[in-house]
């Protein structure tokens, strides 16, 4: 390992280290513009120059490309170095006087104005973008063209590039923030919307899903990761100091033996995009309930401020709204979508109204368009009264249309909610700046497959069916499988907690009993009648029948038998029968039902 001297200070560094890396390790400041630890050194900006005093070619050399060799002595802050950096900055500033990073660096080094004729280039020609594209992304879609003062970053022939994947890596490293990467390639950019933030914000291909994620580690999106898709990039792995990035990790299926199962698979939120009259997706400030929740959340894209979305940029939020309409029952209590009531919307709509008054000021006008206010819980009605006392306007009538077509000056530039106020029997038009859609809770799209997996049924509304609506609200027809939460039907948090605790108690009761009670309706095979044909063995879905080869008869294992009666329904000799469903009993039932004068 070579030993070098930086500013009279001896340092031992690893083989192959550059002087820049060695100095930065020692917390010695060296300014750079073209250096990026993820990229090969370029020596382009010449800001990182150091003065070699001994052990090398004397004079000024770029430290990013200067390898540390035994006996090398450099100085990073000599007058000669400083003078050189100032001149370099002055020249760069003359080319690009408006680039913030350059201006800040020039100020730091005492360079005020350039003495040279000013140009107005936004690109500082640091070359990070082209190295990123070529070295890391393996695309080499862009390069630097022309010479001298005409140098410019572009695609070959200034044409749309065929190899550009529009990944945006070039723009992500640009210190001058001057790359419009979407103009380079033929492929449209595909923004990675943060799922946790309901698409109000972007995320990277590797990201921590949300602040409270457990375990709190980043995950790689395999669809978006350039490394997993092309083998290129791998920057996260090369910069991770803990060496924790493992591209080989894959989903595993783990078998767990359990005594009971609680199905708590939750719900989906209705996507209001197909409901054209409400304009979701067309108007930037028509948002859903969950989007509002993310705006209101302190860890959300606006740090908890309720702001309007910019008309041009869907990821930018500007100022608090002056008027907001909250539309209830979007997809609930609607024969075209879901007939049922989603139960939660009335109360959270009131919460939103309260939050708007609280966060955006009392002047903010809030309108609730409702069918009926269903404030059924403890303290709910009182909250409705309180919110109304705060000045929230309640309009009894479901909104029919959200439009930006203004009929008068007041409506100009606003979203107009059209509804029938059923208390005054009038059509009302309410101009607002933001519209919140209270979308329905619906059964998860994969509910039928999950139901099939667990042997439970799905009701006509799509939610899982409990065994009995009153007497067995957390049970299912399959013993040991219980339901909790919104997978069984729309419900709010208190109801979900109550049902989940009930399900947990039922599951624990089964475990603590230490034994399982089985239904008495199980099959038996009469050994005196059985001829040992063994067809029942093939029919039994639970492999509960075995042949007793000594006696030549089939025998039912009563612990395994569930009593489906497949054996009894087929047995040619009539030896197999299900307790309580014997031939004699069924025949008696048939005779009784069909006897003359019977009323059934």
């Amino acid at each position: 390992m070579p030993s070098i001297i930086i500013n009279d200070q001896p340092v031992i560094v690893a083989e192959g280290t550059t002087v820049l890396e060695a100095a930065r390790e020692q917390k010695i400041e060296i300014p750079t513009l073209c250096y990026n630890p993820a990229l090969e050194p370029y020596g382009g900006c010449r800001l990182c120059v150091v003065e070699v005093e001994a052990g090398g070619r004397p004079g000024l050399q770029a430290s990013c490309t200067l390898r540390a060799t035994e006996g090398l002595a450099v100085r990073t802050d000599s007058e000669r170095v400083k003078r050189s950096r100032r001149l370099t900055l002055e020249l760069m500033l003359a080319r690009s006087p408006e680039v913030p990073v350059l201006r800040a660096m020039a100020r730091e080094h005492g360079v005020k104005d350039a003495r040279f004729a000013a140009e107005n280039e936004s690109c500082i020609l640091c070359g990070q973008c082209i190295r990123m594209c070529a070295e890391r992304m393996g695309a080499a879609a862009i390069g630097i063209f022309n010479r001298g003062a005409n140098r410019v970053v572009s695609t070959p022939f200034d044409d749309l590039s065929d190899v550009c994947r529009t990944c945006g890596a070039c723009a992500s490293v640009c210190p001058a923030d001057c790359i419009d990467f979407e103009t380079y390639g033929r492929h449209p950019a595909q923004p990675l919307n943060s799922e946790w933030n309901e698409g109000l914000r972007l995320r990277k291909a590797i990201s921590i899903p949300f602040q409270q994620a457990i375990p709190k580690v980043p995950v790689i999106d395999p669809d978006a990761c350039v490394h997993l898709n092309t083998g290129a990039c791998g920057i996260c792995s090369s910069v991770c100091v803990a060496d924790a990035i493992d591209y080989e990790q894959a989903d595993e299926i783990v078998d767990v033996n359990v005594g009971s199962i609680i199905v708590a698979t939750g719900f989906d939120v209705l996507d209001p995009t197909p409901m054209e009259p409400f304009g979701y997706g067309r108007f930037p400030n028509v948002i859903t309930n969950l989007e509002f929740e993310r705006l209101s959340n302190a860890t959300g894209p606006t740090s908890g401020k309720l702001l309007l979305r910019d008309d041009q940029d869907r990821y930018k939020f500007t100022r608090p709204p002056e008027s907001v309409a909250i539309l209830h029952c979007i997809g609930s209590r609607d024969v075209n979508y879901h007939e049922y009531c989603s139960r939660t919307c009335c109360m959270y709509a009131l919460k939103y109204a309260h939050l708007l008054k609280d966060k955006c000021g009392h002047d903010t006008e809030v309108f609730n368009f409702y069918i009926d206010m269903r404030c059924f819980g403890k303290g709910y009605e009182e909250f409705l009264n309180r919110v109304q006392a705060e000045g929230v306007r309640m309009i009894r009538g479901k909104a029919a249309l959200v439009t930006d077509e203004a009929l008068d000056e007041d409506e100009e530039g606003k979203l107009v909610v059209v509804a029938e106020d059923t208390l005054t029997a009038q059509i009302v038009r309410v101009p607002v700046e933001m519209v919140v859609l209270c979308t329905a809770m619906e059964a998860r799209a994969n509910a039928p497959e999950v139901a099939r997996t667990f042997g439970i049924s799905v009701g006509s509304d799509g939610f899982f069916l409990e065994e009995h609506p009153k007497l067995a609200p957390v049970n299912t027809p399959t013993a040991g499988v219980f339901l909790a939460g919104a997978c069984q039907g729309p419900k709010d948090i208190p109801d979900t907690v109550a049902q989940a605790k009930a399900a947990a108690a039922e599951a624990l009761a089964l475990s603590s009993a230490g034994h399982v009670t089985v239904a008495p309706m199980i099959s038996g095979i009469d050994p005196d009648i059985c001829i040992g044909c063994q067809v029942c063995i093939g029919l039994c879905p639970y492999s509960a029948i075995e042949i007793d080869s000594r006696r030549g008869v089939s025998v039912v294992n009563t612990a395994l038998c569930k009593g489906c009666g497949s054996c009894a329904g087929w047995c040619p000799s009539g030896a197999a029968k299900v307790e309580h469903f014997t031939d004699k009993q069924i025949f008696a039932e048939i005779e009784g039902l069909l006897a003359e004068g019977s009323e059934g």
Partner: protein
Amino acid sequence: MSKDFEPTITAFLCNWCTFTAADLAGTSRLSYPANVKIIRMMCSGMVDPKFVLKAFLEGTDGVFIGGCWPGDCHYINGNMKARRRVALLHEVLGRFGVDRDRLWLRWVAASEGNMFAETVEEMTSRLMELGPCEMKGKKVA
């Protein structure tokens, strides 16, 4: 065939689906013809062909076997066994001079109370068209 002929339907219903659907039809206050007489079975796959024949011999005009939708059987695949048995029974019944449309196998899920009511309705009117079944008391060799 007299106009006031009221057919009798014997229904063998799976406990987990069609029987529950019949229950649901009741609790939902749906109305359906009183012609149906229900016998609860644990599974449609448990319905022995001789139950069906017995019902016809006892004078029923039609038999309705209700099971779970394919793939939804509480006992994995009992409804598929029922389907095979019914296919065989259709053959047998034809030879006895019983119209095969007097034996219906239908899938009705637990949540489909209205479908149970509709099926009974349909079957009743179909049996009215067919008239009384002449099997009662016939001895089978």
